[in-house]
């Protein structure tokens, strides 16, 4: 259907509109609309797919996760996680950098958003690091790269977007489990790097936390971290669906923040809800119009043609995986995560299936890869937020990013070529 012109209108139109700064969600809708009119299918179908695209129970987990994360962030969880991380790694050389990374690992279990992590943990850690003599750009780079752990450490709403874009063939529980080892690997690799850099630059180490205080700190953070246990445990144990456990997590987070931590201010709630609504509506409308877009791609058999194209270049798994990783790294430099997951998954997943890559494994590779894209210039949401909080120029941070980039790239390659890193834990359960 559509010959060669249909796909050109759809994909060429999309990129042209994105380049002139049309919101990506609307560009997806407009490109789908133009293509539908050209190939002569009723344009009502585009609107039907956009609406039915968000008419899905599994997707309700997205607003719930975002809301639970926002309540926790507002309710003072970040300080407690920083204190908790300080108990474990604060006394090592370059301790604050390590505390930053470990706190992001914990926070990732609660929020799943790299931007939220950078603004919560970063606004505590970056000023603290600067006061203790850490380089400005170093502090920001540690913050932004470690915040990408949250994308893969469960629960993550981006994992749900991937499961959805994969057409419901990938289990959310398996994706959650598969993210644990690669997520921790990112954290450990960054800690090793920051230790080496800290020793070289003579950054200070902190004090060992006395036992009594350590126990109190752990108890305080435990209540917050129980959110992760509720969600992940409920989903994996099959007690709740991801959506149900996310809704319970919101109620739980609210109770902890309001009555245990007592840091939730009623007058801050409307502002918080506006931020949550903006994030959620932005992601959901993307999903809607991306469904129209995917419908037209399938109608014109674009995914099948792309698979054929990749297989003519090479039928070697190693080569194709490398090519796709490089392509996603480049796309990630310019575009945000959610639209790339939604646009690329229906195109690339058939290629992966053709060369025998597990869809769960590919999901983790993709999340890890696009996470790197969030911190690389010229367009990197997390990079920009980190620079704004650290009051450092973007180009200065970007210039000193490379050791961190390289570390994340090495982890990406390990996770790409050793599928067991992602798949070992899910295979224990399924």
């Amino acid at each position, binding site marked *: 259907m559509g010959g060669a012109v249909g796909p050109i209108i759809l994909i060429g139109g999309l990129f042209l*509109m*994105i*380049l*002139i*700064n*049309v*919101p*990506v*969600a*609307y560009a997806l*809708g*407009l490109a789908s*609309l133009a293509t539908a009119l050209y190939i002569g299918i*009723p*344009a*009502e179908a*585009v*609107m*039907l797919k*956009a*609406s039915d695209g*968000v*008419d*899905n*129970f599994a*997707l*309700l987990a997205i*607003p*719930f996760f975002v*809301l639970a994360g926002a309540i926790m962030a507002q309710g003072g969880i970040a300080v407690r996680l920083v204190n908790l991380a300080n108990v474990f790694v604060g006394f090592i050389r370059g301790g604050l950098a390590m505390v930053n990374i470990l706190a992001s690992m914990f926070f990732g279990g609660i929020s799943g958003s790299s931007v939220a992590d950078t603004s919560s943990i970063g606004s505590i850690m970056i000023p603290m690091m600067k006061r203790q003599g850490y380089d400005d750009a170093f502090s920001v780079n540690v913050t932004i790269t470690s915040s990408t752990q949250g994308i893969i450490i469960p629960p993550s709403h981006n994992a749900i977007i991937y499961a959805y874009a994969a057409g419901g063939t990938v289990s959310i529980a398996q994706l959650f489990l598969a993210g644990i080892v690669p997520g921790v690997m990112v954290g450990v690799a960054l800690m090793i790097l920051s230790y080496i850099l800290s020793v070289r630059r003579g950054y200070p180490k902190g004090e060992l936390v006395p036992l009594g205080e350590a126990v109190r700190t752990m108890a305080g953070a435990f209540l917050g971290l129980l959110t992760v246990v509720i969600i992940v445990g409920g989903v994996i144990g099959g007690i*709740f669906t991801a*959506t*149900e456990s996310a*809704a*319970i997590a*919101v*109620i739980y987070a609210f109770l902890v923040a309001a009555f245990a931590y007592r840091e939730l201010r009623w007058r801050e709630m*409307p502002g918080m*809800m*506006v931020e*949550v*609504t*903006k994030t*959620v*509506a*932005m992601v*959901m*409308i*993307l999903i*809607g119009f991306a469904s129209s877009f995917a419908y037209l791609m399938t109608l014109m058999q674009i995914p099948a043609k792309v698979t054929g194209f990749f297989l003519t270049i090479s039928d070697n798994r190693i080569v194709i995986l490398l090519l796709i990783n490089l392509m996603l790294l480049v796309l990630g430099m*310019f*575009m*945000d995560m*959610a*639209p790339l997951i939604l646009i690329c998954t229906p195109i690339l997943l058939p290629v992966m299936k053709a060369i025998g890559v597990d869809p769960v494994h590919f999901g983790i590779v993709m999340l890890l890869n696009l996470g790197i894209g969030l911190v690389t210039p*010229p*367009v990197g949401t997390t990079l*920009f*937020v980190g620079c*704004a909080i650290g009051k450092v120029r973007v180009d200065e941070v970007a210039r000193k990013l490379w050791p961190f980039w390289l570390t994340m790239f090495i982890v990406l390659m390990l996770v790409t070529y050793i599928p067991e890193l992602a798949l070992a834990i899910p295979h224990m359960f399924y």
Partner: protein
Amino acid sequence: MPSTKHAYLRAMELLQALCMGFAALAIIGMTLIIAWSVYTRYWLNLGSFWAEPIAIMLAVQMTFFGAAACYRVGGHISIDVVTRLLPDNGMHRAAERLVDLLVMVLGLAMIWYGTGLVRTTWFQVYPEFQQIRVGLVYTAVPLSGLVTLLFAGERLVLGAPPSAGEAV
């Protein structure tokens, strides 16, 4: 006429607040409904058949009206690396106007084809609720299309609204 301009700006501000407020309440509503249904199922042993479909309906409304409000505050993902490179101010403005026009086209299409969608599905009912028509859910498409059209028109004629800069 500055007074007409001012009145339109105020009206759009109100419309934005309405959409945002409605979407935010929908999110809270969805959360409470799903949490309630889990509670009734595990502790009272009662399934609530209405919870899931109602929560999903709210999600659809939230998506379309929330996205329209999000557009006015500049909250959508878009890429300005290329347009930032455009040399002279005139070309920059022209690109911005083109984007506003394209969004208006989408708004019009949502009104036109969305209305078609509502019409064709108006006589279908949900299996769970005989009273609720399927077409009612789809009204979000043309209505939010109208809101988007009004916001894009505002941007085209009056420029970016004053509140747009605050959004990150």
